[in-house]
């Protein structure tokens, strides 16, 4: 067995080493694949706070991913068409600035998570899964029927947004941005897991009544976690849309939410780097098996089945032991 902190450091180093090698070897597509893996990992890191720490199986996290994506798409669309987003009661214009777009995505996703969480966290178990799924699908169909921003066809952004001091049109600087965002997301997730709030959240997952007897309200704990989780996934959505320079209702789909859960299960539920390993594996398999067969998801399903049956701690659990250490 490898100590989990060492394994985590190796994973983070490998995720950086691959695009560095690709930069040296002149393989820009590999850099794009690594960027995609880092962004999807960030989305799943967000979900892992709700699912891994709080035990909240949300099948609607694509809602926040999509909101982040559309925050980027709408702001960039208005900037590139030189049309204001809103004129009355006050003027709001579009922007191509990544930091402003990220902030908007985080705020919008947080507000949506607050609303969705406030309603759905009054239920538990299968009802919670269903209500989060319903919210995600509501937003999916809303995006499809919103012709102003492309409806079912989505919205194309012709030039990637700007980040001060970096040429984001080149693959490596954009990978670096995504990698740093992932590192910040992981650090936040680690801090939360170690904090009294994270411990209480974890305790509430184990026994709600016991947590109440020490003066904590499980509903508030879970709602806070759900909002933080949604905010991180929203940021990932904005980055994902920027990577593809395209946003579409697919980002809201339940399949997207399902993929985030698959990343976490593959890598290891409640393990800090579980979502990173899961997202990387997914992108590798998608690229490798996708080239062999259109039905590559069948193979992914088989792998997932094997992980659930024989490696319940996911890949991290198989390599570092079953018990999560939060280190």
């Amino acid at each position, binding site marked *: 067995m490898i100590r989990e902190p060492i394994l985590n450091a190796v994973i983070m180093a490998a995720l950086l080493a691959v695009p560095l090698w690709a930069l040296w070897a002149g393989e820009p597509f590999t850099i794009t694949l690594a960027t995609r893996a880092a962004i999807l990992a960030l989305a799943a890191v967000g979900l892992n706070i709700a699912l891994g720490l709080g035990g909240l199986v949300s099948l609607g996290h694509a809602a926040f991913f999509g909101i982040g994506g559309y925050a980027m798409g709408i702001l960039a669309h208005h900037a590139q068409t030189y049309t204001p987003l809103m004129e009355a009661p006050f003027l709001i214009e579009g922007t191509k600035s990544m930091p402003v777009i990220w902030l908007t995505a985080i705020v919008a996703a947080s507000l949506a998570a607050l609303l969705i969480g406030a309603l759905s966290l009054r239920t538990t178990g299968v009802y919670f899964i269903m209500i989060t799924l319903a919210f995600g699908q509501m937003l999916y169909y809303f995006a499809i029927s919103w012709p102003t921003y492309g409806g079912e066809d989505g919205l194309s952004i012709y030039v990637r947004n700007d980040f001060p001091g970096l040429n984001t049109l080149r693959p490596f600087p954009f990978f670096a941005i995504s990698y740093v965002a992932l590192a910040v997301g992981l650090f936040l997730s680690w801090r939360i897991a170690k904090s009294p709030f994270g411990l209480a959240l974890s305790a509430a997952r184990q026994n709600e009544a016991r947590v109440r*007897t*020490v003066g904590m309200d499980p509903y508030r704990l879970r709602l806070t976690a759900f909002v933080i989780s949604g905010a991180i996934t929203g940021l990932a959505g904005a980055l994902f849309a920027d990577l593809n320079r395209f946003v579409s209702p697919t980002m809201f789909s339940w399949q997207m939410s399902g993929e985030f859960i698959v990343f976490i299960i593959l890598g290891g539920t409640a393990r800090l780097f579980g979502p990173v390993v899961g997202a990387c594996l997914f992108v590798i398999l998608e690229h490798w098996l996708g080239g062999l067969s259109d039905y590559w998801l069948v193979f992914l399903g088989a792998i997932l089945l094997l992980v659930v049956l024989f490696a319940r701690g996911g890949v991290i659990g198989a390599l570092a032991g079953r018990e999560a250490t939060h280190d």
Partner: protein
Amino acid sequence: MTLLSVERIEAAYGPAQALFGVTLDVAPGEVLALLGRNGMGKSTTIKVICRLLTASTGKVSLDGQDMAGWPSHRAARAGIGLVPEGRRVFPPLTVEENLTAAARPGDWTLATVSDLFPRLGERLGQRAASLSGGEQQMLAIGRALMTNPRLLILDEATEGLAPVVRQEIWAAIRRLKAETGLAILVVDKSLKELATVADRAVIIEGGRSRWAGDFAELTPTLTERYLGV
């Protein structure tokens, strides 16, 4: 002056009524023993006090404030620290994490809990699941203290423990009484140990309070009649 006041509470589990009128009160700094045979309503009374079960009639108040309608976490935040029956710790968390998760500002900290239970101080990094039964009970008491309560409720805190561990826990309870002035409501079957710490006692039988008075006034006739000892 009364810290906790319970007046003629009645409560039921669905159609099965368990309490038919329990009355008791605890003053600040006082240790009250809640006595009774198994199934007489002691744990149900505690559940009602901690708002884990709603009384159908009667009134529970803390510091003069009626607790009706409070969620259970509000009762805990208002100063009621519960050590539930059966050592209910959070097994996957470490000792330190169990204590930190419950912590609220006040005199009780990791250091003071470790001073009260040195065994816990030595095992801060150990998972609660791997502790002995006695250590888990110490952890459950430590966790309740970390909420910095004004009233500590110990529900069968020494049940099923080795005699040497029981002695350690009774010593800690005596120390709590002597050094902190914390009000304690204790449910236990060991009259000999209770006699060293309890100021007053309330006996419950059949879901009703049958006797209340100074612990020293408990006569063999009373204990034989209501407790069978």
